[in-house]
């Protein structure tokens, strides 16, 4: 085989292999992550985490309150990067990014609940998303997203307060 052709194949392999790894391993990792997210969401379902403030509580005394945060960074894979690259050309929903951000936000919320421990509720919950890293393989596409969930964890007393 001519050497030049060989180099072309190697060049091509450097692009195709990450895409295949991204597709196979990436979707495997994503499925596992979603399974874990669902399990923990079920486990912590009883603890309210709401975007409402103190107005959400009536007839209770608050014994203790402090800030709790949870954050995570989820990386995208090469397959999603290429798919997104094509989406930037034709427009439309960037489906590859949607699950990435969905995972990041739900994971961050779960971590915030871990940080809150046995708090009775988390109030004023806010969710924010940031892009981390600028370039994937020189594409200018997003590399990973950070999601931050934060709120006020409150512990209520037993005696009603008017």
């Amino acid at each position, binding site marked *: 085989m001519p050497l030049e052709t060989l180099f072309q194949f190697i060049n091509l392999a450097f692009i195709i292999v990450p895409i295949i790894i991204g597709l196979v391993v990436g979707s495997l990792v994503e499925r596992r992550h979603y399974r874990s997210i669902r399990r923990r969401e079920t486990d912590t*379902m009883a603890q309210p985490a709401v975007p409402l403030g103190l107005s959400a509580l009536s007839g209770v005394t608050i014994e203790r309150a402090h800030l709790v945060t949870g954050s995570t960074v989820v990386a995208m894979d090469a*397959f999603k990067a290429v798919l997104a690259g094509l989406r930037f050309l034709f427009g439309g929903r960037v489906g590859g990014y949607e699950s990435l951000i*969905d995972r990041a936000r739900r994971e961050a919320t779960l971590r915030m609940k871990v940080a809150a421990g046995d708090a009775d509720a988390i109030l004023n919950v806010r969710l924010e998303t940031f892009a981390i890293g600028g370039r994937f393989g020189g594409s200018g596409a997003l590399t990973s997203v950070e999601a931050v969930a934060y709120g006020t964890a409150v512990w209520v007393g037993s005696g009603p307060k008017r």
Partner: protein
Amino acid sequence: MAPLSGLGLARNADLDAMKWTPRLPDDAVNTSLTRLTILREMVWLSSLAAGLIIIIYVGLGLLVDAVVDYLPDTVDGALERVVVDAADFGPVAEPTLPRVRRWQRELDDLAAAMPAPAPDGFTLHLIEDADTVNAVALPGGHVLLFTGLIDAAPGVDAVRFVLAHELGHFANRDHLRGLGRRLLLALAASLVLGSDNPVSPLVLAPAELLTLRHSRDQETAADAYAVRLLYRAYGSAEGAEAMMRTLAELDHRGTVDGFLSTHPLSAARAEHLRGLIDRLGAEPDTSEPAAP
């Protein structure tokens, strides 16, 4: 953690009874792609991109072909400054060496026989690379001759054919065409995908095949030109077939790298040349049937 009975809207007495109920997030609301649809989307979008690139490439390619014959020679000179550096191909032999001067003279003799001689003449660069059986035509009238080709050639006639073949490329403006095509390919890909998209090489590799196919036609045309030029200069073109037979043999042994990948198969080419030589008269020494 006790269930929070007090959670409700305190300011509105009517809503005081509204209770918070635990609920799991809906999986499907914020994600639109499943594993199957993500693959379908990939196939669909990449075919769209490939189609776009092909349309642009073919369209601009036709434009280049239409324009290239009317380009003034100054374009050649401008390209020379941009793209040519013989040293990129290997160590260049000192131009004052007798063997370089000798092949330069051969090249000048052939150039003088060209129907439309180039005013600036042609410069021969001897590349000291015994492993490469190749010759290259570059903008600005530069002919690169690899020592490997001289070693492999069955005689002076055969090397003359190669030189005439390269002159044929200049006469047909293939050196500009080739550069134009490759430039277009890169241009089309960057227009559609952005300059450094990771997808670009994926699309470029199959598209390169189009360039190869294109260059085979150019080689056949340059061969025909070379045979005619050899007749004009020496009254014989037997070296052409001898060179091709040698190349075909080398190809069989897998020793020819660069030359053949962009050229038609040498055996078929030798047959074709035989036909050309026969048709153009002179003494055919075998009775092989002429190619159409």
